[in-house]
């Protein structure tokens, strides 16, 4: 492999990381504020893809715009789900079995509703963007990847501003970092939780639409991405949008390079072999196990030791 190919792979993984980050950030804020592992995230991702598809097929809305439109729609949907289901869960500082089961059950419900409506065949969103690509030197990049990346990064930047410049953003961070202190200054944890769940669902729907432009999907769509979200959260920690971005970049690079460069194998002496592409799914799993063993508090624990004092 020569340098151009490496550069090509690197670029492709960075472009993928944009969507990955948008996909994981929703789950991160929900976990941070409510300590709920949102297994239904996969369902929201899947619905987001179908939302973009329906908008495209019925109303000829460009799927990028459709994904952005998913933000407000899924925000309201998420708030409704919180109001109907999640607010009844007992409060806890750690994930509870009740919340896991509730979210898992809700995912199954979403999935089966999707089977009823759309059946089980694979769908994909094809636009003129899908087949054309941009040529930079010897590297060619599909336009759709570029556009998806730009949309993801833009929305993440907006989220970052909301996180740091608005009272709602501050109240979310306050609840993540010290819920007791948040209550002392009068943060309404129920209201913030409702808005946060809406925000998490909004980003899931948005990321689902973007992923639907890159991959074909069925009602079972979210499953592998749910796992990737876990890995990104574990890598990036809960404190910041930038942590999520870092985790996403790392995962995307490892996934892309893992099956594209020969790995050293010891079998009667050293030799190099390619990992079969079907093993790509194994990489996030393996990464999750390794990270949990070595850095159970995520990458940020490497940088933020000093926070422990507080």
């Amino acid at each position, binding site marked *: 492999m020569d340098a151009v190919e490496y550069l090509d792979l690197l670029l492709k993984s960075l472009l993928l990381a944009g969507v990955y980050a948008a996909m994981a950030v929703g789950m991160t804020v929900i976990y941070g504020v409510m300590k709920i592992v949102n297994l239904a995230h996969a369902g929201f991702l899947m619905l987001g893809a179908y939302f973009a598809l329906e908008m495209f097929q019925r109303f000829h809305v460009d799927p990028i715009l459709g994904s952005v439109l998913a933000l407000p729609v899924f925000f309201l949907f998420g708030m409704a789900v919180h109001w109907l289901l999640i607010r009844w869960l007992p409060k806890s500082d750690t994930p509870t079995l009740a919340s896991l089961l509730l979210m898992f059950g809700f995912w199954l419900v979403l999935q089966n509703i999707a089977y009823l409506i759309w059946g089980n065949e694979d769908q994909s969103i094809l636009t003129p963007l899908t087949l054309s690509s941009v040529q930079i030197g010897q590297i060619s990049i599909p336009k759709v990847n570029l556009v998806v990346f730009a949309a993801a990064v833009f929305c993440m930047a907006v989220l970052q501003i909301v996180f740091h410049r608005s*009272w709602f953003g501050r*109240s979310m961070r306050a609840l993540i970092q010290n819920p*007791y*202190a948040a209550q*002392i200054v009068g*943060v309404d944890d129920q209201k913030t939780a409702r808005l946060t769940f809406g925000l998490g669902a909004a980003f899931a729907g948005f990321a689902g639409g973007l992923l639907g432009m890159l991959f074909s999907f069925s009602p079972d769509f979210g499953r592998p991405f749910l796992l990737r979200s876990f890995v990104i959260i574990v890598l990036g920690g809960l404190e910041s949008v930038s942590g999520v971005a870092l985790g996403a970049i790392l995962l995307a690079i490892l996934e892309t390079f893992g099956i594209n460069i020969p790995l050293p194998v010891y079998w009667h002496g050293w030799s190099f072999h390619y990992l079969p592409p079907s093993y790509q799914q194994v990489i996030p799993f393996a990464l999750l196990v390794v990270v949990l063993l070595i850095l159970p508090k995520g990458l940020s624990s490497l940088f933020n030791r000093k926070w422990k004092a507080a």
Partner: protein
Amino acid sequence: MAEPQAETKQNDKILVAEGLEVSYGATQVLWGVSFSVTRGKVTCMIGSNGAGKTTSLNTVAGMLRAKNGRLLLNGDDITSLSPRDRVRRHISLVPEGRQLWPGMSVEENLLMGCFLRQFRPKAHPGLERIYGLFPRLKERRHQMAGTLSGGEQQMCAIGRGLMSEPQLLMLDEPSLGLAPRLVDEIFEFITNIARQGVTILLVGQNVNYTLQISHYGYVMETGRITLEGSTEMLMNNEFVRRAYLGIAEETPSK
């Protein structure tokens, strides 16, 4: 006591707690605790670890529910109000161990003291006021609170508590874990704040200092108030001298 006299006495009480009983699960920690805080004065609670001082403050702040007893703020019953509604009524708690948000800047920590919508217009003048009181915080306003020294963190916590211009400021162990020089500094700040007319309810293990800057004090032991009186009286009390000003002070627990 004559009736009219009792009435005037009631009026300058900003907070009255009557027979508070609080439990953590099955363990009862407050057994009929009654105390009051006089407007414009510093009232303190002293006592050893686990006596129920922090629990009392948390109950006043609404973080814990009293299963019996009443809390009156300016004569209004606030026993069943949420912490949020008590903040709204200008009660402010500076909790034990500072409880800042380590990953938020000093300025954001302070701003959160004005989180409630009714306080937000006061947020920016409030910042200037706090920076006037604690110039060190102004220098470090963009620094993460988790990177501050212990004393600076305490200043930040007190600053946050003052942001909403509270009518009652509760300070829980403001000198805990600080170097002696910083302890002097913190108590000086508290005295200054008190001089500006802020009503303070102070809990401290540094009994000597705490009594010196207070006007009235309560002694708590195992969930009950065992002694109360003016601070001069407490400082001369044989039991207080022996238990808190003598031996106990040299072996502070934790």
